[in-house]
């Protein structure tokens, strides 16, 4: 193999699994260390810069970082990254003074943002300080988009959401709330230099099976129902409730129904339990609130008697898998099942919908009625119109919408300054030795063996009575410290200098997880098998040194490295060093290349 090019920041970025997996690439280990040091404000600001809604995401993020966490590969569970983020938000001091302070000097450019969800708000935050006049349109009376309408208050208190939305609105954003944009054409006739569409995927999927029309008074589309609850148009539900669907929206629906008077709430899902789309912790939370999840049941009919919904019938199925592992649901051959219900909530997916975008504006749509959006620049086929968040490629999550917002803001800024949209700013990168002395590192190198700490919850009797009572209490500062200490500091990189190595084997012998080998060079497939422990995780890179004096090379399998620093401790010539790698996605107007 060729020697690894560690001057390419993407190599070490990939070693920081959590950060790499995060769509916004938040510098996770950096803020976890700050939390351990009780520097909550600083930890919050690292988050705020990167993901804009630390308080919201610390409660509701889909956490793509956690399945990626290296800790999960050496023991049972990853670090509770998401809930540590909340600790920073809960305990922060005055963060506002660290944020850009309006008013900003105008650059005489105007940008319209359609939809006040996380994508648009991110664009607003990135562009307003650069002098853009931002006009934010939303049909609701408050900003936040789906963060407000779909995430129930018992998971995300309104005060937290309001605070973080207001940090952005306070940057001098011109809000046009209670304003549904009916025509993009009309909007484009105004003097906006750019339009960003972050209107989400607002159309909940319906279920057209027999009895649907007759039962319509008691059948609700999940996302609409949640929005009506959030804006207090709906305050109660029947005693017996069926929630159809197996995603996180279904979990939010069933738990909300429990709080609005649903005593017997059941989730019924087509797929097997293990394959449901909902996050495991959301399923656990539903189970904790006495909500059974009935899997392998396909809805057949709504049963209506005398104009009143009585329940639903379901066909029982079982999953069969072909040689490629593709799933097929086949009838189980058992009698259909009837489940009683006063109300049914349909949470089987949501779709994009752009009835308000005229098709003669130069914005091309594909066969699925989705706009054609450039994956790098987020521009549509109309050079002034950009898409992001769920509006771009369908429903994802808040953190993805934020990541889109940052990139769209960069594009809008480039476009307004007449530069090429492909001229993307390089990431902000730094690499600094952590050595302070013998056995002394500037980071906490000891690896603790604690297993993951659970986040305490409020008493169920209280939370089920009050829709707005937050269920999770968050870590206290002592538990937060212990959980933070579980982080392996994967951003403190093992950096190897081949010219200093005397091949004494000390690093190889001391490495607790047998990551380091010295061997003759070969191609990657052979090398992976020649190591002290074969490198079977192909998603993890091999760090290959230049040839050493004996013509051998040092190979490090990044897979289960604990970043404990013992290789560097045991190296007599400092050929190994522990160096802290900081990587941050550059935001609009901040790149060296663009100024």
């Amino acid at each position, binding site marked *: 193999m060729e020697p690894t090019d560690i001057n390419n920041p993407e190599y070490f970025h990939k070693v920081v699994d959590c950060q790499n997996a995060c769509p916004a690439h938040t510098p996770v280990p950096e803020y976890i260390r700050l939390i351990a040091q009780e520097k909550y404000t600083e930890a919050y600001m690292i988050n705020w810069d990167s993901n804009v809604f630390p308080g919201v995401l610390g409660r509701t993020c889909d956490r793509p970082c956690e399945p990626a966490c290296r800790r999960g590969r050496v023991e049972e569970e990853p670090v509770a990254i998401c809930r540590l983020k909340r600790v920073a938000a809960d305990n922060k001091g005055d963060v506002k003074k660290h944020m850009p302070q309006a008013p900003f000097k105008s650059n005489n450019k105007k940008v319209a943002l359609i939809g006040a969800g996380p994508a648009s708000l991110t664009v607003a935050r990135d562009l307003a300080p650069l002098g853009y006049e931002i006009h934010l349109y939303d049909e609701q009376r408050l900003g936040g988009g789906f963060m407000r309408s779909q995430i129930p208050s018992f998971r995300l208190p309104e005060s937290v959401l309001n605070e973080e939305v207001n940090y952005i609105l306070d940057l001098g954003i011109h809000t046009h709330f209670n304003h549904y944009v009916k025509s993009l054409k009309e909007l484009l006739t105004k003097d906006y230099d750019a339009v960003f569409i972050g209107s989400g995927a607002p159309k909940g999927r319906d279920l057209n099976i027999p009895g649907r029309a007759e039962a319509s008074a008691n059948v609700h589309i999940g996302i609409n129902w949640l929005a009506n609850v959030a804006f207090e148009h709906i305050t109660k539900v029947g005693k017996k409730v069926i929630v159809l669907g197996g995603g996180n929206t279904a979990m939010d629906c069933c738990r909300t129904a429990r709080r609005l008077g649903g005593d017997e709430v059941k989730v019924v899902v087509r797929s097997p339990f293990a394959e449901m789309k909902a996050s495991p912790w959301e399923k656990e939370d539903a189970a904790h609130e006495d909500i059974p999840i009935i899997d392998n049941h396909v809805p057949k009919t709504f049963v209506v008697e005398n104009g009143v919904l009585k329940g639903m019938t379901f066909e029982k199925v079982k999953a069969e898998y072909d040689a490629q592992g593709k799933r097929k649901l086949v009838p189980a051959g058992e009698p259909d099942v009837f489940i009683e219900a006063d109300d049914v909530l349909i949470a089987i997916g949501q779709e994009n919908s752009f009835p308000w975008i005229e098709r003669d504006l130069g914005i091309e749509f594909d066969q699925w009625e989705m706009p054609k959006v450039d994956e790098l620049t987020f521009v549509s086929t109309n050079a002034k119109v950009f898409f992001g968040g769920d509006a771009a490629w369908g429903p994802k999550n808040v953190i993805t919408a934020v990541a889109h917002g940052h990139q769209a803001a960069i594009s809008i800024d480039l476009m307004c300054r007449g530069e090429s949209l492909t001229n993307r700013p390089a990431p902000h990168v730094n690499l600094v030795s952590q050595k302070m002395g013998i*056995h002394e590192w500037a980071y906490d190198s000891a*690896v603790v063996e604690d297993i993951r700490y659970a986040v305490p919850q409020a008493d169920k009797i209280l939370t089920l009575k009050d829709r707005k009572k937050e269920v999770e209490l968050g870590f206290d500062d002592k538990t937060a410290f212990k959980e933070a200490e579980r982080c392996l500091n994967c951003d403190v990189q093992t950096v190897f200098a081949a010219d200093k190595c005397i091949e004494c*084997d000390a690093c190889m012998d001391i490495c607790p997880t047998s990551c380091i080998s010295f061997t003759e060079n070969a191609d990657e497939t052979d090398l992976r098998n020649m190591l002290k422990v074969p490198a079977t995780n192909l998603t993890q890179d091999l760090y290959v040194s230049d040839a050493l004096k004996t013509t051998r090379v040092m190979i490090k399998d990044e897979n289960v490295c604990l970043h404990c620093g013992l290789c560097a401790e045991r190296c007599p010539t400092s050929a190994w060093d522990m160096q802290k790698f900081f990587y941050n996605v550059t935001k609009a107007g901040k790149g060296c290349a663009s100024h």
Partner: protein
Amino acid sequence: MTYVRPKFRHPELQKNKLGYTVDYYEGALSTLCAGCGHDSISASIIQSAYEMNIEPHKLAKLSGIGCSSKTPAYFLSNSHGFNSVHGRMPSVATGANLANRDLIYFGVSGDGDSASIGMGQFVHVIRRNLNMTYIVMNNGCYGLTKGQDSATADQGSKNKSGNVNPFDSIDLASLAIELGASFVAQSFSGDKSQLVPLIKAAMNHPGFAFINVISPCVTFNNNVGSTKSYDYVREHIEATSTIDFVPQMQEINVDYGQGSKKHVTMHDGSLIELRKLSDDWDPLDRQSAMNAIMNSKSKNEILTGLLYMNQDVKDLHHTLNTTDKPLNTLTKKELCPGSEMLKGINAGLR
């Protein structure tokens, strides 16, 4: 400050026949200097014991005094251990071995512990052919007392402060062969692919097995001009052969067609497979082993690998005609055979 070895291990470590992963054979975290050759030898010992499927409680590690003699703390924590007086490890090993012949005896010593203060003990344990493995971690200096030349420092070798050693060195491997050791090998701490099979073969050898391992002192004897530095050893190393040890239970596919390959069958059917690098050397012939060492020396080479092996030997128990059972398993019946037996003995002395 942290200097603790995390408990996490690679989740895909293979288990040996006893069901242990290699970490079961580890010891405490070494306090030797970073980069010490001795730590690398410890790692080879751990690897060998793991690969040999040794039950840790069936092995006793013994040592004297010195950096080398600290190392038994750093491997095989689940085995018996005795850290004895300076240079007196062979006496303790002899006593232990006579008391319990069922254990594997693994002695670790250094150049000071064996070639200076312990020379008397060293030569006699060889002469008696005690069934044990005896490893000298040889760095040519007294590392524990700041690097003075030891008795194995080569003449002309320069130490860290620039002084050249005026004395000729004691060559422990030649001495062992001369004294009739039945298994003699030489190796280098930085070459695990050679050292691990040598240790395995030595542990399997039913008599005194000696391995002289050159193990650079990274702090006091790794300078330019030293003949025991990493660089010097790597430049001057010459192997008798490549070596592989094939335990008796393992099925072997041997290609006898290749002329340079030689197999030595051990007492229990295990094989040592050697791919010879020099033609005029026969590991079973003492004369040729001595010649090979001398030839290498005259060319300023360090000869490594298996040097000499004699299968046809009797160990100390055999010579002394001792009981074939460990003393702690003997019962009153064997220890007090009764007055009839005493009468018989007394009658034999009339």
